[in-house]
């Protein structure tokens, strides 16, 4: 047993840290896709994507022929963790392209698709920005229920229907789209296909969905006879569900180190705040209640850290984790909620001050975390869905839904 990172992993951590300090210049920590909202944030984010690509980090997990550097799972772990700790925007570039579009195309895309779509992602170009449209009004946790139709007409598909909760659609050049190509199936997982959609196609309407914090991440998409070349089908027609299940594997190991980085930084902010804040004639840091609450949060973070190490180690051994990612996601949600609410307890009435106000505490970071965590916990599968996965696939219990 050994819990040390290798020397080259530590060196990478150091490089990312130096990069973050020099490039971020005191910019705010971004928790979860907030950079998609305002134009100036998005512009900065894309500049960072470009720089990260030049450093060879943006798609480091990918093979060299696709613009990556065959980085090990542990190198990816360190990079993701560190980038998230510093809140470097642009490291996910709207999530989809780096997260699963590229890797999926490498596995079940064709040569033409790979040549066309992968290089802009690896280069950190605006043409490499993707969104993913899976969810629909009646297909959330029950995703296989999707109804958006693609009817083949010669060498084109004609799309009609509606998608929702599509983050980054207003920034994306392309959309990674799941549609129903065969409605006459006995099992609803059949008859789904994956299609690449050019976001400039006529017939697409994008409606922003602004979240309760005033941030624009989500969108509604409407398709009104949108025409897509058949050549944009990815993999095998009607096998989309199975391709998709496979592609979900690509982000499995990144959840814990990403959340851990963000949470660790937030905890440090809170600790620092406690040391410089006086209450009742003494430092907040001297209050036993505060000390114990924060110690509990630190313990939870340590556990999350270990879960992150574990899944990365398993993947490095060639094991495909199944329940571990679901466990980690559910636990991340729990940890973030506890941290965000403890953080607001600590800053007290200032927790309600707008994050950009001159009166906000800790540069608005705790308030931001507090406003964002419920959304992050729903994204990519609610904790209930995650726990169902663990119950079925790890504990061998019957399906509970």
């Amino acid at each position: 047993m050994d819990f040390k990172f290798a020397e080259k992993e530590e060196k990478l951590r150091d490089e990312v840290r130096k990069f973050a300090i020099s490039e971020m210049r005191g910019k705010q920590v971004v928790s979860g896709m907030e950079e998609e909202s305002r134009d100036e944030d998005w512009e900065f984010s894309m500049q960072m994507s470009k720089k990260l690509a030049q450093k060879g980090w943006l798609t480091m997990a990918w093979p060299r022929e696709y613009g990556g550097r065959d980085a090990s799972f542990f190198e990816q772990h360190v990079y993701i963790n560190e980038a998230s700790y510093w809140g470097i925007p642009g490291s996910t570039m709207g999530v989809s392209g780096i997260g699963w579009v590229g890797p999926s195309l490498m596995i079940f895309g064709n040569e033409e698709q790979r040549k066309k779509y992968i290089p802009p992602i690896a280069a950190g170009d605006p043409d490499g920005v993707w969104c993913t449209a899976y969810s629909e009004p009646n297909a959330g946790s029950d995703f296989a229920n999707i109804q958006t139709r693609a009817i083949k007409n010669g060498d084109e598909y004609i799309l009609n229907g509606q998608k929702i909760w599509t983050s980054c659609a207003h920034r994306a050049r392309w959309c990674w789209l799941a549609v129903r190509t065969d409605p006459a199936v006995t099992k609803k997982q059949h008859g789904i296909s994956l299609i690449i959609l050019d976001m400039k196609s006529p017939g697409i309407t994008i409606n922003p969905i602004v979240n309760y914090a005033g941030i624009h991440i989500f969108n509604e998409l409407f398709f009104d006879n949108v025409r897509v070349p058949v050549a944009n089908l990815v993999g095998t027609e009607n096998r989309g569900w199975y391709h998709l299940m496979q592609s979900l594997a690509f982000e499995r190991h990144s959840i814990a180190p990403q959340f851990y980085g963000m949470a660790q930084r937030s905890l440090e902010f809170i600790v620092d705040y406690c040391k410089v804040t006086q209450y009742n004639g003494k430092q907040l840091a001297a209050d036993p209640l505060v000390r114990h609450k924060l110690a509990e949060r630190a313990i939870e973070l340590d556990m999350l850290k270990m879960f992150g190490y574990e899944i990365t180690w398993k993947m490095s051994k060639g094991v495909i984790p199944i329940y571990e990612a679901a466990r980690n996601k559910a636990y991340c949600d729990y940890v973030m909620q506890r941290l965000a609410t403890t953080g607001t307890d600590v800053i007290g009435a200032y927790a309600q001050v707008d994050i950009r106000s001159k009166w906000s505490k800790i540069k608005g970071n705790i308030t931001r975390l507090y406003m964002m965590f419920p959304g992050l916990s729903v994204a990519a599968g609610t904790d209930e869905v995650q726990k169902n996965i663990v119950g079925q696939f790890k504990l061998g219990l019957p399906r509970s839904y």
Partner: protein
Amino acid sequence: MDFDFNEQQNMLKTMARDFLSKECTKARVHELDKDEKGYDPDMLAKMAELGWTGLIFPEQYGGTGADLLDLVVLMEEMGRNILPGPFFSTVALCAIPIIKYATPTQKAKYLPPIANGQAIWSLALTERSGRFEPSEIHCSANYDGKNYLINGEKWFSQYAHVADYLLVVCRTGEAKRNGDDLTVFIVKAKSRGIKMELIPTIAGDGQCRLRFTNVKVSKRDILGKVGKGWKVVDYLMQRAIVLKCAEVSGACQAVMDMTQAYAKDRVQFDKPIGAFMAIQHKLVDMLTDVEGLQYLVYYAAWLLSTGAKADMPVSVAKARANEVYQRVCIDGIKIHGAIGFTMDHDIGCYFRRVKAAEFMLGDTDLHLEKVALGIGL
């Protein structure tokens, strides 16, 4: 980074699981819980033969020179089977500081009998308050020019009633802060002036109250240096905490396993109860806690075995172990329903040990405070 046990550890794990599931059955545990000695001398002798009591001793003292992580593997299995008896108090609480702080003469005298399974030891540290801070030590040892005379009380000394030797932590000076002027003495358990009483506990795990009246101890029987006793205690506590946590982690795994099996087996409303989301999600939370605890324990043990400073990870593990053991037992009992509430069911054996584990070597508050220090508060 590597989460795997090495070959030797895997062998030890298999051997321990085989031996304990055969020798330390739950029926036997139930008997020993009610037995005044509280352990099975034959079983202890067999464990000594297997090399467990001397596992981490240097070879010259009859051991096999294994490290803390190896002992963690063993403790996890002991926890899984809830092995009753003085193994922990002898090896974790007493032999570990002897290996580190004893003189060569003391080691040669005291370690081989432990390795052979012939000697039982008990740590006499906590007093009336049951707490683990140096300020709580009042038991005194005054030098009369020839010997030290120990006077005072010790509480919750495990298996002192069957022990051959005690490690007694005494105040040998006036300073009450930072553990200055505390000294650890090696004392024969049958010395004149020691009165022992068993404290009836819910686990029946052989905890004793000791009263010392002018108990004579020679200078030669000091472990470590005079006035530097808390250093010895601190050293043993860190390691013993990790081992206690490993034991708890094993116990939690066992409770998890039996509850998972029950949820698959028990049918109500025409379904196994594990098919109901309320039950299933509770089990998933238990699993998350159990796996997390396991990794935190390995991490702390690994750090200590590399010689690194591990104050915070050790306290993280203990605070977590205290909480998880209790929660897993309570949820486990609830999922079992009424049957989990009976003397005959195994889950109660685990639940009865929750408080003993929790208050041994520092309660949750004490360790949370150490974690708070660790994060810079």
